[in-house]
């Protein structure tokens, strides 16, 4: 199997899916956990680049 294909498969195996909540509150909490897991499993650079879009847009 080509190296690139192997990488795609590994990424697919690692992927965690967000469980839809039955209420707005449950859905929000599920996302908070989903995002916390993303922060835990990705580099600081990767998650902070995304988070900074939210934070920096408020300050400008």
């Amino acid at each position: 199997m080509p190296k690139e294909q192997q990488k795609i498969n590994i990424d697919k195996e690692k992927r965690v899916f967000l469980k839809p909540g039955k209420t707005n509150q449950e859905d929000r909490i599920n996302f908070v956990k989903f995002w916390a897991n993303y922060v835990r499993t990705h580099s600081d650079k990767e998650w902070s680049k995304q988070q900074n879009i939210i934070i920096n847009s408020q300050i400008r």
Partner: protein
Amino acid sequence: MEYNLKNREITLHRIPSELDELVLRFTSIIERYVKYTIISGYISILLGRARATEDVDLFIEFINFEKFKEMYNNLKEEGFWCLNAEDPREIFSFLEEGLAVRFSIEGKPIPNFEVKFPKREIDKGTFEDFLKVHIGGKIIIISSLERQIAFKRYYLKSDKDIEDAIHIEELFKEKIDYEKINKLRRVIESIK
């Protein structure tokens, strides 16, 4: 992100946000005069929570008026102003009454820094178990994660606060001292 429990330090390799830069700018001034500890929502944001905020809350240890005036003058020189009053004596009297005063970049009310003296014993405890967060070669002092979780879950309790607590719990699952949270919970419930 690395949490060194023994040294009570968190090291972030994140790209500092503009809010982080502002916090560093503000705290680099006040730490010349007084010990501080950041409490509340900004801690979750610093540690990755995907939300914005309009204020950053912090406790400063009690200082006398002369020292406060020096700090206030320095803040003004560096482009901050107080949203509550201009006269340092008046601002200090608010603090002495146990009220919080807010500082922001001159002419820009948000985001702002909500500063107060710790009143209750449990608040004073924030200076005993604080954490150092290393970011961009600088340090931000925050209250312990357990204290954060306990206050958010059992004192503040809004949806936003519960979500902030969940974020920290999920992030540091194995390193959180749940016994300490329960002890703090009992103290919080006794003062309400």
